[in-house]
Every structure is written in C-alpha cells, then in structure tokens.
C-alpha cells in the first residue's frame, strides 16, 4: 500500500494509505480525544469528540473515521476545536447522572478523564431535562444503568460487530434515544450470552458486572465456612492493570499472596481444572474420531459460547463436548474428592472462582453442574471484582511478595495456562490427543498455527494411525457464527473446533479490567496478554496436561481412567436448546 504524506499540527508525517486522521495524528505523537471510537468495533463518528479542522474541508471532520489524503493539512488542537470539545462534554454531562463519587468507574472513567483534561469546570452549563431510566439488573452477569450511559454505542458495537448477537441497540429517537433491548425485554430474557464485552467496551459506568464481592466477603468472615478460591489462567495477566502495572504482566505470585491476605482459606488454581478438562476432552475427541461420533467436536469451556450455541445453533448441541468447563470441573473436584479427602462437609465449603469472564456467573447456576448434589461452584468473581477487593482491603498489590498455591490442587502444566488465549485449548488438547493417538512422545509442543489473534484459524495435522486431523479455532462470536455457517453449509469440514466467546479468548474476557480506549485503539491488548501466558507455558517444566502428577494421582485415587463413568458423572454436563428472545 502506498504511503500518504500529510501535515498534522505542523508536523509532517507519513502513514499508510487508508489510515485515518486519528492514526496519522498518533503517528505524529498527537493524541486526539475519542469517546465513541473503538477500532474495528465501533467506528461510527457519533460522539464528535475527535473533530478536527482540515484545510479546505467544508466542515469539521471526524478524525476517527476520516481517511487521510496526500498533502492534507490538519489542525487537531485549535482553540476553536478545543472549545467545541468542551461543549460536547458539557452537553453529554447534561444528560448524565454525574454521580461520580458513587460510581465503580470513578478514576477509571473515560468521560471523567476527558472532562478533567479539557477543563470542564462548569458541569451544569447546559443543565436541562434528563432522560429517566431504570436499572436493568435482571441478568445474573450484567447490570445496565442508563442514567450513566452517554450513547457512545461502544456496547452496541461490541454486541453486534464483535459478537454477532445484537441484543442491545438504540431505541427511540432524538433526545429520547437510549440503549436497550428489543421491546425492552429484561436482559435476562434475551439471547444475551453474558459475555460482558459490552462492559469492557463501556467508557463510563453504565455497564458493570453483578457484584458478588459482598457475598464472598461475608463467607470469608464466617468462621464456619471453608472458602476456597481458584483464579483462571487469564486473571494473572490482567489483574495488574487494576494497579497500574504494565499491560499483560504476569502477577501470579502477588495474586496468590493477595488472595491469601484477603482471607481465603485455600488458594488453588483453575489451571488444575484446565488440565483436567484437557484429559477428559482429548479422551472424548479420540473416542468420537475413532468410533464415528458426532464431528466436528466443539469445545465447551466458554459459557458465553455455550449459551450462544444453545440460542443460535441448537441443532449443533450434539457437536459440543460434554466436558464441563475448567472452573466447573475444578468446582466438582473440590466438593467431592477434596471434601472427602480433607473431611470437610460439603455444606461448609464455599467455592469461589476469579474469572476474566462475566458469563461464568451464569454458568455456576446452570443445570447439571452439581456433582456433589449442590452447585459445583458458589461464586464467580471477575478480575475487576478481585481488584476492588484487594484495593478495599488496603493491600499494596504492586509491592506484594510472591505467594504459593496450596496443595494438592495447585499444580498445573503449561498446557493449562494457555487456555486463556484463543487457540490455547486447541493446542493443549492437541498436545495430549496427538500423543495418545500416535502413542509416541511429542517432540514439538508448540502448535503455532492455532496461535494468534486472528478471528478464525485453521490447521491440519497428520496423526498416525488415523491420518489427517483438521481443526479450526474461532474467537469472538461473530467469527464463530461465520465458521459455523461454513461448517453447516458443508463448505468446511473439521474434526475439532475451539470456540471462545470473547475476541482473542479469555485474556480479553468481559470480566477483565477496563483498558482505556486510547490504549485499546493503539495496542492489541489480546496479543500482549496472550504473550504473558505463552511465556509462562514456555517456562513450565511440564507442558502436557496428562503429565500433571496431581491429575495422574486424581485418576488413580478417584476417577480411574480418563473418561471413566465416574469422571463422566462428575466432570461432564448437558445442554438445552434455547430460543432467541423469550416469549417473542
């Protein structure tokens, strides 16, 4: 592609053709403010914060979507433009509840930061009628508070463009416009899959997860309860964001220490559940491939994906692996094997997870997720919720020493930790399945074809004695839809598919800390966090799930063989077909 030369604020800059003025300005070291713009997700030019002057243009241009042309001369920072931006902010504030002190996004709010930056000193300048709204807390995962919504529609873009779902959109018109569901159905009654991408897209406090911290803190404070915690792989490369640490930094040790200081009785790692998932799932795959079972088999770790499948592709439920997710498998192990081994009555155990995910809050309440007759897991916190608990407890996270997991369920392999990145489950499963099918030890453990942030990835491997094994990986449900439509039409044919609801996988989950849009638009957060996980994998001495000594012990002592009947009873689940928008 040709290069375009232009002048931004008297700085000459050369950018590739097709770049926007926003990108060209960034290349020139100039930050143009944006509120509604999220690269590839919401490019609608609606908020008007990024307006700039371009010489010769009839009117102000929206730099986030304005393509640069050769010789263009742009002014991004004139007094006129700054004054207009201030007015835009004041107008937004006039229909915003301005309850900053009570808002979970205070100090982490893009609107607040922008107001500060532009010196909006009169927040009531355009005070007038405000839209009335009711908080929708019908969902177990996501709370919507339109009194804070600034109509930037990033959530809408995330829902329809990233996720191909579109349960929220603009209702009504003009000043009455609000983001809502079709026919104002409560979110819980729609085909929302609880992925939480809307939350991470939201620049303000209009969308947040349903809080579970109060219940967890109460359980910790109850001396009769044994409170067990398991953080997911991706949490360790996201949690640092809450404390201003570099993006994607692995904070596993500090996280363990913080969890212990918060008062959790036992600190384990979902990675153990992930290893368990792999041995069960690989066994299921081998079984299906060798006995003519339903193919392609599709992974089932991502509860957002599962609900999406149930709503949109109910005919493909037989393709879903029956394996519970790592969180649920681990939950089942804690309330059965571990409870018995430690002699703790099941009703005294409070099992908690920390997840990069909001859909996990829905998953814990699903049917057929109670191996011990009670729910496998009691509370699923998001990474953000954990961050808040740590802050509130006065823990100086950045300067914590590294802690260590409790045994016996704290051990994990490199295969488990990469679950957090798109392609990671596939790679982990392949490490086990290929070795099991071929009967030979794998020498090359890195299946790089399935790594990376592309939405859809394909690979095929020759695995003796069964021959070619074709696999595909999709992340982001819009990509999943594309892939599944190709599979259904017969255009594509695979043995095994990994699908993660969130683009880039769990590292970019809806429960992860907010990354300001100015960072998101410039850096691929998914890739940075994924790299953190691959680095951990490389550093592990054991990198295949079936070689996790504690997994081997667990099967020896408890389940027998991989995929045994007892394992099936505790570690596998079932699914239900659902409709799009209940009762419509």
């Amino acid at each position, binding site marked *: 592609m040709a290069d375009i030369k232009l002048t931004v604020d008297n700085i000459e800059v050369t950018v590739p053709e097709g770049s926007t003025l926003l990108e060209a300005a960034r290349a020139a070291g100039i930050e143009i403010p944006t509120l509604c713009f999220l690269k590839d997700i919401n490019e*609608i*030019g*609606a*908020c*008007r914060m990024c*307006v700039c002057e371009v010489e010769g243009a009839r*009117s*102000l241009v*929206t730099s986030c*979507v*304005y*393509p640069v042309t050769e010789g263009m001369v742009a002014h991004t920072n004139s007094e006129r433009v700054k004054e*207009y931006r201030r*007015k*835009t902010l004041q*107008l*937004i504030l*006039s*229909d915003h509840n301005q309850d900053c002190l009570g808002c979970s996004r205070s100090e982490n709010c893009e609107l607040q930061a922008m107001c500060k930056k532009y010196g909006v000193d009169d927040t009531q300048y*355009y005070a*007038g*009628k405000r839209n009335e709204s009711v908080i929708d807390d019908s969902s177990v995962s996501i709370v919507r508070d339109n009194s804070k919504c600034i*109509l930037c*529609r990033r959530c809408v873009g995330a829902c329809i463009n990233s996720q191909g779902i579109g349960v929220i*959109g*603009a209702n*009504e*018109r*003009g*000043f*009455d*416009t609000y983001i809502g569901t079709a026919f104002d159905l409560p979110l819980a009654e729609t085909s929302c899959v609880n992925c939480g991408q809307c939350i991470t897209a939201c620049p303000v406090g209009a969308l947040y997860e349903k809080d579970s911290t109060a219940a967890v803190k109460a359980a910790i404070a109850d001396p009769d309860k044994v409170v067990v915690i398991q953080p997911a792989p991706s949490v360790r490369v996201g949690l640092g964001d809450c404390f201003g640490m570099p993006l994607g930094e692995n904070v596993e040790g500090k996280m363990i220490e913080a969890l212990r200081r918060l008062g959790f009785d036992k600190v384990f790692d979902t990675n153990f559940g992930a290893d368990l998932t792999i041995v069960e799932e690989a066994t299921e795959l081998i079984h299906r491939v060798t006995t003519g079972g339903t193919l392609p088999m599709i992974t089932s770790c991502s509860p957002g994906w599962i609900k999406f499948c149930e709503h949109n592709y109910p005919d493909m439920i037989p393709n879903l692996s029956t394996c519970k997710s790592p969180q649920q498998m681990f939950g089942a192990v804690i309330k059965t094997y571990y409870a018995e081994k430690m002699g703790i009555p099941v009703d005294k155990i409070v099992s908690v997870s920390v997840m990069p995910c909001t859909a996990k809050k829905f998953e814990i309440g699903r049917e057929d997720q109670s191996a011990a007759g009670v729910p496998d897991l009691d509370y699923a916190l998001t990474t953000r919720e954990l961050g808040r608990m740590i802050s509130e407890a006065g823990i100086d996270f950045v300067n914590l020493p590294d802690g260590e997991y409790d045994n016996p369920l704290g051990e994990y392999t490199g295969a488990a930790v990469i679950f957090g990145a798109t392609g990671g489950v596939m790679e982990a499963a392949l490490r086990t399945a290929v070795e099991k099918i071929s009967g030979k030890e794998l020498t090359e453990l890195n299946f790089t074809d399935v790594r990376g942030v592309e939405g859809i990835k394909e690979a095929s491997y020759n695995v003796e004695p069964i021959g070619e094994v074709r696999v595909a990986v999709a992340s982001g449900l819009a990509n999943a839809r594309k892939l599944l439509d190709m599979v259904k039409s017969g255009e594509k044919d695979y043995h095994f598919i990994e699908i993660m609801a969130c683009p880039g996988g769990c590292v970019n989950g809806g429960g992860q800390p907010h990354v300001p849009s100015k960072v998101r638009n410039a850096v691929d957060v998914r890739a940075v966090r994924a790299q953190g996980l691959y680095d951990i994998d490389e550093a592990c001495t054991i990198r295949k799930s079936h070689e996790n000594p504690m997994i081997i012990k667990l099967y020896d002592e408890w389940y027998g063989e991989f995929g045994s009947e007892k394992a099936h009873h505790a570690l596998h689940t079932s699914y239900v077909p659902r409709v799009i928008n209940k009762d419509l």
Partner: protein
Amino acid sequence: MKTIQDLKDIKNQKGAQVDIRFGGDAEAEKTYILCCAGTGCTSSHSQDLMANFRKLAEEAGMSDKVEIIPTGCQGLCAKGPVVVVYPGDVHYQLVTPDMAQRIWDEHIVGGTPVSEYLMKEETTSGEDIPFEESSFYNDQVRLALRNCGKIDPENIDEYIAREGYQAIAKALTEMTPDEVIQVMIDSGLRGRGGAGFPTGKKWLFASGNRGNVQKYVCCNADEGDPGAFMDRSILEGDPHSVIEAMSIAGYAIGANQGYIYVRAEYPIAIDRLEIALKQAREYGVLGKNIFGTGFDFDIDLRLGAGAFVCGEETALMTSIEGNRGEPHPRPPFPAVKGLFQSPTILNNVETYANIPQIILKGADWFNCSGTETSKGTKVFALGGKINNTGLVEVPMGATLRHVVEDIGGGVPNGKKFKAAQTGGPSGGCIPADYYDIPMDYENLSSIGCMMGSGGLIVLDEDDCMVDIAKFFLGFTVSESCGKCTPCRIGTKRMLEILEKISEGKGTMEDLDKLEELAKYIKANSLCGLGQTAPNPVLATINFFRDEYIAHIKEKRCPAGVCKALLSYTIDADKCKGCTLCARNCPAGAISGEVRGAHVIDTEKCIKCGVCMDNCKFGAIYKK
C-alpha cells in the same frame, strides 16, 4: 414487450387527444372530465365524485362519449376537489360529489358550464377574478409538473402519448452513457431535494468501472419537510417520469437495479408507483433487455416509516439495507460506497422528473432558463397564510413577492406579509425586507435560508417568530436520530431555551447561549439534519431579534401568540353583560351580573381564547 416503434405508434394514435388538455387543437372525440385524485382532493371525496360522474355517464349510456380521468395534483389544493372539463378547459373548484349532477346536466349534456361552480381566484382586494385572468396558472412554468394533473397516472399509454419512454429510448440507442452524463452536466440541473448538488457531477462520480461492479440508483421519495408535498404529487401524478429517469441514470452509471425509498404515509403514491412499475415491466421498458439493447434495469420500492432523517442520503441507504435509519460520516461518499457498500447515486423525485425532458430536448433547452447558477424551475409547496395553498412551479430566480402575491394570491384577510419560511426545518425565514429576492440556491443561502425541497410557508403579522423557531426546532428535536451528541442533546437544550423565552422566563444570557449552541451544532453535527437544525432559530434571531428581546425584557409577545405572556381582559365599557363569555368559559374564570360588565379572573384563566371568539361586542382583548 414493446419496441420503440410501438411506443411511437401509441403516441401517434393517442397523442392528439391527450394534447387537447395541453392546448392542442385537435377535435375532441369525447368529453374528458379530469378529476384530481391526489391526496388532498381524495381526502375531500374526489373518488366519490368520480364515481358519481361514472354512474351518470353509464345511466345516460354515454360511457363511450365521456371519459372520466383521475389525475394527480392539479396544483390549486385550496380549491380542491378540482375538476377540469375538455374541450373548453373549464375549471371547477370545490366540487363535492353532489355537485356532479348539475355539472353533468348543464355542462356535459347541456353544453353550458355551471358558472356558480367555476374556479375563481380571490384577491387581496376581496374581488374574485375569473380563472382565465389568474396568475396562478398563467405565471407558472411547468417542467417537473408538466404532466401532473393532466394525465391519468395509472395509464402508461397517456404517459407514452406525452413522449414517455422516448428519452430512455434515445439514450439507449443514440447516446453513450458518457454522453448522457455530459448532457446532465451541461444542463446545469441541480438536486431539488435540498442541497442543490449538480446532478450530472453526482452521476459522473459514480460512473467509473461500468459493468464490473454492482451499482444502484436510488430515488429519495422520503419527503419530510413540514408543508412540502411536491414529490408526493409527482409520484401521484406522473410516476412514469421518475421511473424513466431512473432507468436513464442506471444506463449512465452502469447500474441495473434501482430503489425508490418512499414514505409509507404516501399510500396513493405507493399504489400509483406499483401500478406504474407493473405496466412498465409489461411494456418491457423496465426489466431485462430494454428495447432489445441488452440494457437491464429494474426498480423495487422500499417503504420508509416516516423518519425525517431518512431523507439524508446515508440514513436512507442504511434504512434500505434494513437497519435503523441513521446517517454515517462521509467519506466514503455513496458514489464510492453507498447502498450495500456499492457505488450508488441518489436523486430526489423532482430532480428525476426533469430528466427525461432534458435528454429529449437537450442541455441547452434546459439551461437557458433559470439564473446563472440555478437552472430550470423549482416547485414550491405554498402553505401557511396564503390564499392559493397548493403546488406551483416557477423558473429559478422568481422573486418571493411574485410567488406569494401574484401566483399565491397574497396573504388572506388583508393581513400583512411578515416572512416566508423556506427549506422547512433546515431552512430559515425570508423577511419582508427581502420580498424581492430572486429565489435560487445561492441567493437563499446568502441570507441564511435555503431552497430545501421547496416548502414555502407564509407568515403574517399574527405569527410570532419565537414560536415559529420553536415549532421548527421542536420538529428537528423529535426527528433527530439520536446518534451524535450535538444534534441529540444540543438541539434539545436549544429548544428548552426557546421554551423559556416564550414563557417570559428567558434572559439575555439565554439568547447568547442559544446563538452559541446554534453555531456549535451547525459545525459539529454528523449529518445535514443537525448541521441545519439551528437555521430557523438563527434566521429568526437575525431578522427578528427585537421580537426575542420583547419576550425577554418586556415579557411580551408582540404577535400575541405565546400563551404564557398573554392575558385576556374585558373592556368594561364595551361589555354588555350578555354572559355568553362566562357561560362558555371552560375554566369558570369569568364572573359578572347579567347586563353588568364581566371580569376575567386571570388566576383561573387558561388562555384558551374561547371568550374572545364568542364575544359579539369585541369587548375582550388579549395583550
């Protein structure tokens, strides 16, 4: 499937009889009764009227001697239903269904027009003048409306008799697509929908890569300005002209599919379009291999739900695609990436209606009329305080005074002309000071107004300019799509300030804030709707600042419109104590003895004005 020769045969066969309605001197084979079947006259029962004529013809056994022809709008809506009888060019006004009998007996059978029913023009002097002398028709130049009100829109043969589909035939057989575009450029035709972009240039931008990419031709029939109805009238009166023009556009840019985006609230226009499309397909002038030239072109209708913003081109296309009708930033422009991401041109109905004639008669024929930069004619929908409410077409550059006073018959009831709002909610008002301004694109925008789609609402001394600004801004506030911040919130805040001022609660700081917001919204809004929404406010402040100041400083509405600033009082000297006002007051605010002067309790008064309307002695005043 018809050939070009077939069309010529139809024209030769029927042309002379149809031409009688256009001043042709052929001997009439029949008596032709033209009844307006446009939306206005249909609402006034013109369908029943036609049924009565048909029944009378049948009963008299004269169905083969008398033809009752439904037409589109004839223009003088104030006098509808309108009936014209040929031969003789006899115009009747305000014809109710029961008037059919007398017209039939005395005129059709008896040969003498019913003079009582004849169309007359009322003048400001109060004397009626006969139709022949009225300037309503005589001063008009009808290009876009050439067939409206004169032919049966549901009969393709009548359109063909008026050289219909000869322009597309000429384009396909005698011109290259580039030549068609050149004629359009040379003609100087500019978009009649509002912005006035040169049509030929628009086509040129979309003309690249013909035959290799999917392209679309769209027609904007989402007429939404309050008071404008020329597009509806053209679709109701001459739908084939639009269909033919779209085919020409398709040939010029290399598109084979067209869409007409028409408001669902235009049921008659939709019916006529559907009939016209069906007939055009039957005749082979639409569809595959038109006239055997290998050119394919077809048109589908898409019904809009009445959102004003869907008249904005990108919003219109988004709506056709099946999404919420909202605009998106340009570039990319539709000529590059429009409907379904394909190169698309969009023209408005009135623009299209000009095109077949331009192709047939050439660019020079068209560009010799109008002004330097604005060629041809413009259709105006006259409304508000004007005698001849209706649809008129005048050459570009006609003065406002000519249109209002001569063609429009002036302001009723001897009131004084105060201003005219052009361009609907996107335009501004032209005050009496500019009564003699020649109306074209440049002149109107030079004074902060715009041509817009041609709605022209006349205001008289009883209209309050703050109230007018509030009306139009209220319209854009409720029609804003809600996508961009300035339009969604900014216009609402402006409206709130206007409401404050009209309630007498405004301050001079509010006036400053109003202007400051207006400037901001114009500069920052995403689409044309927001960019022009402040115009009515800016124009009224510009020309009638003193009225705003009277509301703010003196708490007074000079025109006596703003309710909150009014109070009703009874002149004790004039009051005869008839009690009529007290008995009719819905709020029980008036008291007084019989034959004694009455008094209004201003605390209770709801300012409905019923007392003043009822007083026979002129004893009640509002101030």
